[in-house]
Structure formats: structure tokens, C-alpha cells
């Protein structure tokens, strides 16, 4: 079973947000302040924490204040894939209809009504099924539990404090289930501790304290002092033992000495081991906010892969005894790291967005219902590119990577105005754009993903398409199949999806009398042996020069090698950085300004 759907009403930025969740792993992405943590919090409030320590409940402060007064916070969850072995627990909350093997869905919700003026406590009520009021908390709240790993958590402190001790205890108890096993273990521990108590150093400490102790208590009752191990119990031992980790050839080190990164990994490992050992609930939702904090990209990617496998394994276990909890695991991660989402399929992504500071919407890639083949192609691309396609940034679609480098070099020239601070912001916005080269991926697929209408919204970000055209026929001529193919995709030409006509390839667009000197200097810098090819440019009339200049990027008729575009662009960028004058062609300047948009906050476009 898994939490398949969450509806959040009036909780902070989520005025009316429906989030679809995946059975194993769901990656929540989106800009800051788009409600990722709010989604995790909603799950926290709807379910019980595994350790039983309920945090602060909802308060008035959590009530959404955007877009007018809101009456109450309402959080609604749907549990899907409930098998007949487990469905009896949820009999008062089942929804109509059954799936394969008689699986059912169950719904529950909580409503928090803030207190009237002058009172401090609001009212929380629970409903189950199709909106029937539940007397007290429904079974669902305790049968579905969560472990919350908030962002910036101090893993070292958690591992060495009470939380860590409780986890060690659970692991010990899970291993000591056979009759007499716990007793035998405690006996062994007692013997070890007795040896320690008998050590001369420990005895010496006792003697040192006994002297002042005897002096203090002499008038009343003569007392002695000493160091000894207490009667071992699982609770005492759990507190005494510390989780450590080490690499081959080194000795064990406490979490604090391994750095926050490995402490984080160790903490997550103990959580997973605990959940696997003590399957106390039908479903545990592991909520991880920003797992990339402290973790190397490799480690965070591997971690996510492992979490996914743990969730899948929990579901594969054939738990047919109704008397036992199903022990399923589901992972919900909130992240800003594109590398992390590359570890799972794109269909596990849910993008949260607030177009123009509107209420939050959640758009799931799974809702696009892409064909398996298309999804695999997209997954392969994301896995290799680590592209932040779904992370709420503008998108620049170009023919080749060299074109992207060129635009980056030209941005500083274009984004100049009287306000230097503003210029700096504009350049930052431009540089945040996700670049997609048509040479690397089927751009039709990417555009389809970005622009397909998806219920309430679409991924379609501010997209600039630098499309190739032929001179003299810039509009009618369709671009070659090898480059950008977007003609049939809806939305192109709207305010947020703009096409900028440039040469195919782009080089010819750069050539004009004002730029000739710097273009020639760049060639000299990039390909010192090819400078004689510039003679062909000089030999032509100005109108023909762009075409001839462009030809240099292809092998010459006399067998001259093609100029390497990447080397050339880098050389040109160096010259521009040194202050060489350059006139940026209009379509390129427009594209740069478009991506550095300074107007309303851009976000996923609402159709």
C-alpha cells in the first residue's frame, strides 16, 4: 500500500493543492517557497511519527493568508493498494471500488479550524471515507506512520542522543526475539561490564572519590564511592552503545568524527535498518527534506537508489498474515539537486510551482502518461545530463552546446543598463537557465514534456528556442530535422515560449562589418593554422561574407579541416571578456533578454 494522493487546503502557500505520490519514491522539486516542505508537513500531520513523539500541531500561523481569508486547514490523504489482508483495519474509511486482487483505497482527512479571537486553541476534526466524521483519530492515522528527516538536521547529535539510543534498542530487540536470547545477551554484557569494573584504573577512580565522600558523610553514615557498571538492561545498553562507521583498514570512529556527510549516511542507514527490523505499521513514509545537504553527489545518488530499492523490497515481501503489519515503505524526498532526481525515473518527479505568486500547484510527470519508450529516452537523457529541466528554471533550446557557450559569452554585453546591480541580477537569471542542445536529445520530446497541458498546469517554463533558418527565407522554411523540431508543439509563439530565428548554424548571424575584426581575431586565436581561410571572407562582397564565414566551420573544398566551434567560441569569449567591441545580433540579444526576464516571477505556465 502507499499514500497515493494528498490534497492540501489552506496550509501556508498551498491554497488548494493536489499532489499525486508514487508507490516507491516521489521526488518533490521546485523553487524555494513553492511548498515542498509544506507537502512533507501535511504528511507529518496526517500520520503518526514512528517514534511516537508528535511535534507541534497545526496552529493559526499555518493558515494560508494568500488570496483572501481561509476558513480552515484541510489535509486529505488517500491510501491506495490496500490488500485484503490489511483492509479490515481501514473498513470505516474504504472508498468504493476494488483493484486487482481485491485491493482497495482508503481516505482520511483532518480539518483544523483556528480559534476565535481571544482563544488560543483551534479545533481539529477527522473524517474518513467519503467525508464521514470519525470519532477521534482514525485507525489510518496510526497505521500509517512517518519518519521525518528535516533539512539541516544534526545527524551527529541525533545519532548520539536519545533518538539514536531508541533506534539501537529497536534493532537489538528485533534481533533478540528467540526465547531466552535476550537474557543470554544481557548475561554476556554483564560479564563484560564486570571485567571493566574490576580493572585497576576503574577501582582507582573509585578510591579517589571515596576519600572526599567519606569526609562529607562521616558525621552521618560512612559511605564509599566507586565506578561500576549498572545492571545491564536493553535500555541501558542502548544508551551506552554508539553507532560508529569506518572504512576498510581504519578503526571505528564515532559519527561526529566522520564529518556530517557520513554521519548523515550512517543516520539514514540506521533508520532503514530500524524500519526493516521493526515493521510495526502497515506503511511507513520516510520524509526526507534536502538529502543532498552534506552529501557528495555520488553518495546522495546512491542513497536514493538504495531507498528506492528498500521501498520496492518492502512491497515485494509476501506478507499474507493479517495479524502482522504489512511493513511497506514509501519515500518522499524534497530536493533542489538535479543529480538526485536523475537516480530515479522522471515519472517519480512532482514539480511544485507558484506561477506569479499564485497558490501552489503540483505537476507530476507521471500525469503526462508518456509511452514507455519515450519515458526511457527521457530518463536516459536526464541520467547522463543531470539536467535541471524540472527545477523551475527557464529553458534555452539550442542546436549545439557551442551555441549555448556563445550566448553565455554574449550575455554580459547584452544585459547592460544604468543600474549595475540590476544587470548583475539579470545575468544571474540568464545563467540559471537550463540549456538543452538539440544535438544531445530529441528536442521534440523535451518540448512535448514541457508544453503538454497537464490538468491544472504544465511544466512549460519560459522557453527560448534558437531555431535555425536559411537566409532569405527565415520564416517559411522549416528547420532541418537534425535541429530543433518544434513546429507542431502547441504553445510556441506564446509569451512564455518564444522562437528566435538565427542562422543554421548560428555563425553566419554573427557576421557583420562591425564584428569582422573580432571574429577574425578569434579565428587566429582558436585555429592559428587556419587564418589563411579568412582570405576567402575578405575576397567576397559584404553580403556574401556571412555564408563564407560559416563555411569555415565545415571542411574546406581543398581539404582544409573545419574550425572547431567550441574552441572558436571560447576564443571569442576571451576576446569579449578583454573588452573587444562586438555588436550582438538582434535575435540573439532578444533571446538573452527574454531568458533574463525581469518581469513577474516566472514559473510553470498555466494554460
Amino acid at each position, binding site marked *: 500500500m502507499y499514500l497515493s494522493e494528498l490534497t492540501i487546503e489552506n496550509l501556508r502557500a498551498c491554497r488548494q493543492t493536489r499532489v499525486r505520490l508514487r508507490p516507491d519514491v516521489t521526488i518533490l522539486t521546485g523553487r524555494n517557497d513553492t511548498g515542498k516542505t509544506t507537502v512533507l508537513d501535511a504528511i507529518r500531520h496526517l500520520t503518526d511519527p514512528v517514534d511516537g513523539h508528535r511535534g507541534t500541531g497545526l496552529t493559526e500561523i499555518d493558515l494560508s493568508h494568500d488570496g483572501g481569508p481561509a476558513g480552515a486547514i484541510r489535509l486529505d490523504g488517500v491510501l491506495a493498494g490496500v490488500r485484503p489482508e490489511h*483492509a*479490515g483495519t481501514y*473498513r470505516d474509511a474504504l472508498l468504493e471500488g476494488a483493484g486487482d486482487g481485491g485491493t482497495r483505497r482508503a481516505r482520511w482527512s483532518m480539518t483544523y479550524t483556528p480559534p476565535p479571537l481571544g482563544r488560543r486553541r483551534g479545533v481539529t*476534526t477527522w473524517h474518513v471515507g467519503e467525508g464521514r*466524521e470519525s470519532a477521534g483519530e482514525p485507525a489510518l492515522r496510526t497505521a500509517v506512520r512517518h519518519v521525518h528527516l528535516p533539512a539541516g538536521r544534526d545527524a551527529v547529535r541525533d545519532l548520539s542522543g536519545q533518538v539514536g539510543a531508541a533506534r539501537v534498542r529497536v534493532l537489538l530487540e528485533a534481533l533478540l526475539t528467540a526465547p531466552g536470547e535476550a537474557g543470554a545477551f544481557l548475561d554476556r554484557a554483564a560479564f563484560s561490564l564486570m571485567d571493566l569494573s574490576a580493572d585497576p584504573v576503574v577501582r582507582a577512580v573509585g578510591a579517589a572519590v571515596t576519600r572526599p565522600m567519606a569526609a562529607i558523610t562521616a558525621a552521618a553514615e560512612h559511605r564509599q564511592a566507586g565506578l561500576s557498571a549498572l545492571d545491564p538492561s536493553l535500555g541501558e545498553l542502548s544508551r551506552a552503545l554508539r553507532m560508529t562507521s569506518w572504512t576498510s583498514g581504519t578503526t571505528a570512529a564515532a559519527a561526529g568524527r566522520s564529518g556530517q556527510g557520513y554521519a548523515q549516511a550512517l543516520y539514514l542507514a540506521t533508520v532503514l535498518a530500524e524500519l526493516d527490523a521493526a515493521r510495526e505499521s502497515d506503511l511507513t513514509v520516510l520524509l526526507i527534506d534536502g538529502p543532498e545537504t552534506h552529501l557528495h553527489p555520488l553518495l546522495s545518488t546512491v542513497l536514493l537508489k538504495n531507498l528506492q530499492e528498500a521501498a520496492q523490497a518492502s512491497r515485494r515481501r509476501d506478507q499474507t*498474515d*493479517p495479524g502482522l503489519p504489512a511493513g511497506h515503505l514509501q519515500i518522499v524526498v524534497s530536493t533542489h539537486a538535479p543529480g538526485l532526481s536523475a537516480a530515479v525515473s522522471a515519472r517519480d518527479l512532482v514539480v511544485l510551482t507558484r506561477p506569479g505568486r499564485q497558490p501552489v500547484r503540483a505537476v507530476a510527470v507521471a500525469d503526462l502518461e508518456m509511452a514507455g519508450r519515450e519515458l526511457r529516452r527521457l530518463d536516459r537523457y536526464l541520467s547522463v545530463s543531470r539536467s535541471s529541466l524540472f527545477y523551475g528554471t527557464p529553458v534555452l533550446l539550442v542546436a549545439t552546446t557551442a551555441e549555448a557557450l556563445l550566448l553565455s559569452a554574449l550575455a554580459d554585453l547584452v544585459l547592460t543598463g544604468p543600474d549595475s546591480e540590476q544587470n548583475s541580477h539579470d545575468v544571474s537569471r540568464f545563467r540559471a537557465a537550463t540549456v538543452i542542445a538539440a544535438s544531445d536529445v530529441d528536442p521534440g520530446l523535451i518540448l512535448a514534456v514541457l508544453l503538454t497541458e497537464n490538468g491544472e498546469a504544465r511544466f512549460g517554463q519560459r522557453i527560448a528556442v534558437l531555431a535555425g533558418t536559411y537566409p532569405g527565407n527565415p520564416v517559411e522554411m522549416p528547420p532541418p530535422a537534425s535541429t530543433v523540431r518544434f513546429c507542431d508543439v502547441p504553445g510556441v509563439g506564446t509569451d512564455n515560449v518564444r522562437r528566435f530565428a538565427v542562422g543554421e548554424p548560428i555563425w553566419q548571424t554573427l557576421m557583420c562589418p562591425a564584428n569582422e575584426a573580432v571574429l577574425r581575431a578569434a579565428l587566429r586565436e582558436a585555429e592559428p593554422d587556419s587564418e589563411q581561410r579568412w582570405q576567402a571572407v575578405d575576397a567576397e562582397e559584404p553580403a556574401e561574407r556571412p555564408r563564407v564565414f560559416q563555411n569555415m566551420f565545415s571542411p574546406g573544398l581543398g581539404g582544409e579541416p573545419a574550425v572547431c566551434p567550441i574552441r572558436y567560441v571560447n576564443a571569442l569569449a576571451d576576446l569579449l571578456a578583454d573588452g573587444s567591441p562586438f555588436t550582438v545580433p538582434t535575435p540573439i540579444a532578444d533571446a538573452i533578454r527574454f531568458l533574463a526576464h525581469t518581469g513577474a516571477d516566472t514559473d510553470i505556465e498555466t494554460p
Partner: protein
Amino acid sequence: MNAAADQAAAAQQQAITAAAPLFVRACPGAGKTHVIVSRHLRGPAAVLRDGRALLSYTRAAAQQIRDRCHRLGRPDATGYPHYVGTLDGFLWNHLVIPHRSPERPLQLLDSWDRVNATVTLNHRTVPLSAFSFICRPGTYADVIRRDLMPTAYLRLIQSSGRNWDDWVRQAYTVRRDLCSRGYVTGHEARQLALQHLDRDPGLADTLRSRFAELVVDEGQDCSSTDVEILDRLHEHGVPLVVVADPDQLIYGWRDADPARLAALENKLGTTIVLDGNWRSTGPVCRLANTLRTGRRPPDIAVHTTTADPPVILLPAVFTRTGNRHLPSGRPVTDIFLQHAHQHGISPQQCLTTAHRRAHLPAAHRPNGANTATRLAHARRVLHSATAGHDLLDSACRTGARTLLRYWYPHLDHTSSLEDQSIAAGLDLDTIARHAYAFLHALPEPGPNWPKAVNQRLKDSPRPAGAAPQRTTGYLRGTATLPPRTDDTGRPCPADNIHQVKGAEYQAVLLLVPDDDAGIRWINGDPATDELLRTWYVAVTRAQRLLGIGIGADQLPAITEHLRDRQVPVLIG
């Protein structure tokens, strides 16, 4: 709004603001819930005392009030110090529980069937629930009403060789034994409440300190004991508001008494009449008026128009196996659905109802009551994947009893499921979980079904402490279930009149199979004839379209009678 609406709204406003004690006589569709909730929400939010108890007769009605408070953003109005629930629950919590002795815990059952209570004499067994215990007014003693015993059990008793008095004595003995074990039903709880109220005047003081007002909805459903308790509360100065429609008094067989209700109305002093009907059309109101006592004008249909459909009279033949529409030979419901379709009403909004379940279409009649049939029915409920919470819970309970009989043969299986689960060391939820899985795994009933069930009993995972003994607890007998309803979709709703009380549907078909329907309708007095009041309840469920399926021989007289009373009718 039209003048009728203005007038109806003004009367509602009066009922909302008038001070208690108060009697509100509300016609069907008068917006009682609106009045009760509005009256309630006029009070300040977040009070610590001076709450209001809103008491309904059914859990569904109480839930409706709670839901409305929630929708209006006032969930606080359903919590302490207020009380929104059933009258039975209120009496139990405020008048019975405070006097419960710690040595003698009480368990409230909704029926003696919950503990499989039976009365046995001369190898004949009758469920204790078939004996109707009625409180003798002014005393704390009961009588058992023979006239309320189902005919099948009366025959069994007659064939037992023991007389009625022997059976009555035995029934009292069985009940006394159960009560001594701490089990009570609503009837015993009411008696206890009355006793405590009489013996401990402090109880009323406690109620007064917490509640500024007690609002009792559906007051006409109160039994004589209920009315007696309300009467005492009134005497003790607890402010009462009773909302009732005496025309809808259909629980005479459960000891509801129109005269006692009228006496209470008089004692309360002020009566406000709500006769604006916001639910039904003019034709429905006019027909309903022919089924109530006194020559009163019909209730005012607030939303009536000249395009309202007439009442459709469907001549029918009723047999033991069903009914058919006389001209066409097809089931009456089918013909009515055609009429509803013409008015744009979907089948899901068409209620078919009758005084007794036996007169409803076959699919809605639960047949037989042996264990195998009950288990087969529970399996069907579970597999339907459309059953509501109550049905599903009941199905799981049936499955749980079967499992417990097999797992723990030494348990007392005449005790409640709750007690059995405590004795077995299991929590009820775990047993329900096993029961759901068990019921789901059962095959479709057919030949050798008990054998398959018993095999499943043997193979199903069981709790650690279960100790089955060979075949003890095995299922025996044959399951007889009515044929499955059509698979084309959900069947249109149908239930007996007592079960649809308080509901409303776009269209209602009332089946009247009684041979003396004409005489009763035309010459009977609804003040004394409860069947007429029952029909009244049925027809007032209709919002737009009303159909009456009636014996063809009864039709001419009734048609003429209705036309005399200006009811537009159409013979369908």
C-alpha cells in the same frame, strides 16, 4: 423569494430565536436541520459552559447536524460543552454512566442479537430480540407485547407445547441473566436513566450546569419512556426544545405514544408551527395531506410551479414472489423509472419503498438467517466493493464470529464480540482484519460451499493463542442468498419506510399491496391507524415525483378520493 417562501422563512426565524421551553411542530421538508443548527450557532463560540445538546433519533441525523456545523466553519459547536448525538447516547452518557458501579461494568448493545441471545423451551428457540419489552408507564417494570412478535415465531411458540406465559417468564429470565452480566439494550438503558433521574435530583442539576438547552429532534419517535424522561427534565428546570411532527409518528410498535407527546407539548407551553415545505411540490403536499389527521390545509409547497408532475398511480398485482404492473405485466418499479426518466430523474434518485421489506423487489430482501447465509451475505457485501461503512463493519463482525468460534472453541460465544475478543486476548481491530481477509478469500457460494469455507478456516493464518479443536466451529448448513443484483450498475435505492425516514429523493414509489388500502385511506383515521402515518412518511420523502403502486381493485376508489381532494393524478 415568493410570498410562501417569505412566510416559511419568517416562521423558521421565529423558531430559531424563540426562548426555551419550546415545541416546534415541523412539517416534512420544513428545514428542521437548518433551524436547529442556526439556533445553535447563534450562541457565542468557544464557551466553557452553557452548552447545547442537539439530540437526534438516529446517528445519521446527528451526523448531518455535525457536518453542517463543520461546513459552516464551527466545529467547536460540536465539541464540549455541547453535545451533538443521539438521544440514546445522551441518556447513556449523562444519566446512566455516572451511576454505573465500578464492580458492574455495563455494555450497551444495539440489539440482543449482538450476543446471540435466545430463549429456548422444549427444543424450540426464539431470539430474545423477537420479544418486545415495553415499559409500563409510571413504573420501572416491563410488559412483553404479544402483538408485536413476528408471526413466524408466534407459530413456533404455539407449536412448542408451552403457553405464552411460560415463554414470557423464560424471556425475562434470559434477559435478567444478561443484565446481570452487564449487557443492556437501549430499552433497559432508558429505564435505568429514568430511575437514576428520579432517585438522584443532583443529576438534573449537573445537566443544567453544563447545558443551557436540550434540543430534541424527531420528537415523535420518542418512546413513552423517552417522553417521560423529557418530562422529568422539564420539571427539573432543564430548558427543552422539542422538534417533532406528530403526523410522522410511526414507532407506535416501539412504544411511541401520540397522546404523551401531545401532553408534553402542552407542558412546554409555546408551540411554533413550521408548515412551509421546502422539499416537495404542490401535488406531493396535497397527496400527503390526505394521509394525515384532521381537515387541515395542505402544507405550503415553497417551490411549487404549474409544471410540477402529477402523482402517478400504477395499478399492480402483488404476489408472494413480487409485483407486476397490470397493463404491461412488467415490474412496477420499471414503469415508474420510465416516468422518472421522462422528468429527467436518474434511477439513483428513485426510491422504492413499502411498509414491509417483503413487498420490495427481491434483490433487496435479505433471506434466511442461518449462519451459512449470514456468512455468504457478509462475503457478498465485502466483494461488492461498494458497501457502506455500516454494512462492511457488520460483515466483518459476522466473519469475526465465525473465526472466533473455530479458533477459540471454549469461549462463551453468546457474549458480545467485544467480550470475546477480550477473552481471547486480541483487540477487536486485529480480529476484524483477519475477518476481512477471511471473507475475501472465500469462494462464491455454491454446492459444497461450507466445505470450502471450513477448508479456508483451517488454512487461514491464525493468532498465536488460537487452539482449534478438530471440527468444532465448522460451518454447517446451506447458504441461501437472493440472486445477485444486475451488474449494469448500482440498483436504484429501495428500503422499507422506517429505514428511509428522514431521507429525501427526487422521486419516490410507494408500494401499497394491502387489500384494504382503499378503505383505510378513504375512511381511516391517521390518528389511530399507524399504517396511514407510515404511508405519509413515505410520500413526504418525494421532492418532485411521487408514484403509488396499488392493487388494481383498490385503484378506482382511491383515484376518485384523491381527485375529490384536489390531488392531480395520472394513471400510469
